[in-house]
């Protein structure tokens, strides 16, 4: 019987197989997630700014819609969703920016505005138009939400955070509102 020639010591064999598997699965994972990893940074808000606002290191994921992208003028970045997740500190803190190009903003933007319902109030200095509102779920988690438009592009900004601690002062809330204003100004600014 012909002897199988081993090119590595027997002790290394399982390790090599494991590494091979990891590489192989990484390849498939990477291929499947190719859209998600196309852009390293978020075109409208950089990671350092998000980290500064959220108060710690963040993980950024950028995803692009499956459907055909509408070409933007002057090389402006294509539609995408950026998600910044706080890595340490308050769990559940996520900041998301979803940018969509509308076919007919006069017709389509109304559906976006409806996401704030009647609680929305106008934000000055953000895009062509913007409204802000606060959404609270059954668990008491709070989402700061801004719906805005720059020309024919809409963006939905959400900042989810855990239930506020009892006794949060008006000053704390104002700080959050100021941060929301600052970030949405930046996003709109980048979309102009």
């Amino acid at each position, binding site marked *: 019987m012909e002897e199988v020639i081993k090119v590595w010591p027997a002790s290394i064999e399982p390790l090599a197989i494991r590494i091979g598997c990891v590489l192989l699965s990484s390849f498939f994972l990477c291929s499947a997630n190719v859209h998600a990893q196309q852009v390293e940074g978020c075109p409208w808000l*950089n990671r350092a700014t998000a980290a500064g606002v959220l108060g710690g290191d963040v993980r950024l994921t950028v995803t692009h819609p499956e459907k055909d992208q509408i070409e933007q003028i002057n*090389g402006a970045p294509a539609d995408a969703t950026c998600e910044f997740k706080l890595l340490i500190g308050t769990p559940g803190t996520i900041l998301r920016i979803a940018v969509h190009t509308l076919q007919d903003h006069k017709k389509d933007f109304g559906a976006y505005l409806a996401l704030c319902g009647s609680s929305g109030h106008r934000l000055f200095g953000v*895009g*062509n138009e913007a409204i802000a509102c606060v959404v609270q779920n059954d668990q008491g988690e709070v989402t700061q939400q801004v719906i805005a438009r720059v020309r024919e592009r809409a963006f939905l900004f959400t900042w989810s955070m855990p239930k506020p601690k009892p006794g949060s002062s008006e000053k704390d809330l104002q700080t959050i509102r100021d941060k929301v204003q600052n970030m949405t100004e*930046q996003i709109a600014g980048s979309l*102009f």
Partner: protein
Amino acid sequence: MIQSHEIRRRLQRTMLWTGTILLLVLSFTPRTIMTPVRGAQSSSQATGNANAYPQTTDNSKAYPQSQSGSPVYAPTQVVPHIPLPHERQEWADKVRDSYNFSILKDNISLPGNAQVEGGDFIQPGAFPTAQYCGHCHQEAYSQWREALHSNSFRTPFYRTSVNIVINTKGIQFSRHCDSCHNPIAVLSGGLTQNSIVDRTFDQDGLTCMTCHSISSVQSTLGNGGYVMGVPAVMTDTNGKRIPGEVPYADILTHPDWHAKAVMRPLLQQPEFCASCHKANLPNSLNDYKWIRAFTAYDEWQNSKFSQRNPLTFYQADFKTCQGCHMERQPISLPEPGAKHGTFVSHRWLAGNTASPFYYGFDEQLKKTIAFLKSGNYLNVDLFGIRINGQQQIVAPLGSKGYSLKPDDTVEVSVVIQNKNIGHSLIPEVRDLYEAWVEFEAKDVTTGKTIYHSGFMKPDGSLDERAHSFTNRPVNEGGTFVDNHKVWTIHSVAYDNTVAAGRSVLVRYEFKVPLGTAHAVVITAKVNYRHLRRSYTDNIFGKDDYPDYPIIEIAARTRTMHIGNNEPEPADTHDNPEWMRWNNLGVSYLDQFQYAEAIDAFDHVIKLRPDYADGYTNLALTNLGWEKFSSARAELEKALQLSPDNARALYYMALIERRSGSNKEEIADLKKVVEMYPDSVDARRELGISYYQSRNSAAAMEQFKALQRIDPDNLTAHYNLSLLYRRAGMKNEAKEQAALFATKKIDPGAPTYSSDFLRRHPEISTESIPWHIHSDMRDDPKDASLPSQGTRDGGSH
């Protein structure tokens, strides 16, 4: 009047001479000098400055005091790298790891000119925030928050332009714009791919501690030509600056140490403003060549308010940029910096109504509008009329009687004087800002419009045939650069600005309708809109935003009765009669209509025989007309009336040069330079006089002085390159020759303009000085014909 073929002939002759001179320069310039324009720019930028100014880091040397004790601006340079405190060094190393230097290794701001003490990146947190300052300086904070400086980066009007640079050329090129619009972003290393800089400071644009930290100005080159000091709000007992924020209690204990840290004398100097209110497009940005963008500072320097220019038509008290745009106002909030209940305005009121309109800053908007309407900045003069093409003009209107009847053709001469603006009408980015003349003639009885120019079209854009004070930069395809893609600009097809102190003549023509029963009322206004409609369309999308404000800056109305019109009393805002004629003369002079200018200035002399400038104006016209002996006689008369009149001496020197009287020429120019040491024109001409008399050392001294005043001066670059070479200063000669080569106009550039003008006859007509606005001449070519009254009155 000079006929158009004569002007063409003169232009051709000038071009021929210019071409010959350029050829000579090219022939005699070593190849190494003429090579890479990019290299030329880089070599100057490597030292941080195009000019070899002595290095100064000691502030006491940077701000020498004049004899009167007021600080005097002196250009300075920053030492590139010095040992940095640990925290800053760590930050700088971290940023440098991934920073895209792109253009020149170790220069963090190119294609902008911003520099920072220490010569390396600085942490954004080193700048105390506006909120920190606003804790005590509440009035300053509230004004600043609504002002343009705090919104210099975030406005859609700016972001739309800078985003195009970022998305098409790369974020590193935005350092050109952000050296002024967002200095912290530039100097902290935020303008690079995958930046690690937290940009929350963007919202504050030019925050308190950007201006109040600037330690010196490199030169008046602009493009952010400042040197940012390490921000400090306090000094210690020895006057040493303490970086960063300090407890308020410390400031309150030693307010004098606080003042010493933040109130450098430079803040009150016009050169401080020059670092950003002057800009060029360097070849490192446009891959083409150096192009002047705007020069608000130079315009001020040439205006009567600087008292540095002997050649202005009128005189005024000295007034800086800050004098107009930071006037003291009563305070309404606590302000430790206030004196006697007033504080220098931190609103920097000017022409921008767009930003306060967008942000809903009602107070800023209201004050901006009031500012534009105040100050007697412009004078609109319905100067005269010609009826049915008569040779004789009825002028000045109000002083002379005339008769009018239905079916008469009326040509109205409107003189717009840039009376009290310390810069041009309109300044800076006149491809975006819009000022124009709106002229309307109406039947008083029916209210029906007979003729209207400068109206708003239904889509919100301006009547293309309006007389506007805008410009038209074009790209290499001869297309208007509509969205401020400044790096694509190759030429300016048309620039109809009115320089400070000068006047422009605008002509309108209409026919009095047959049924007109009583009178026709004519109105001329100068309107201003910030910004042009097509630009706001680019920003917000067409028809998707409210109309931006249109402000009437100045206006004049007169009623022309059917039948006899008797003289009427002058309005309180009207200029005196001699000045009305004088402004007309200035307008004609700028339109090359020398005979008419002479006639206008003759009226001035008749009304004010003791007015020396009246004779100088006549001489200036005759100089242009090449009637040198007449000019000499008039200047002699001016000097008789005012023996040390610098303006007359200057023009006399030019006549003496022509007659070969070199000694007299130099003596006169020396006198002018003694009286006006910062006069660009006098320094230039004296340099030329010395050069022609082979006094190289004296010529060099003048051109160096000229370069200190105007670092972009082509004559200085050209002559210094020759003089340095003769003196064996090869490197200096090379640098000056290279700067001349990159800054001189591309001889091919006018072809881009021609392409544009061929496609836009309405602008082509506007670009001819003596055009007439009329609905009676539908073919634009007709509108460019001389007026009926002057058609037969040729000067030659």
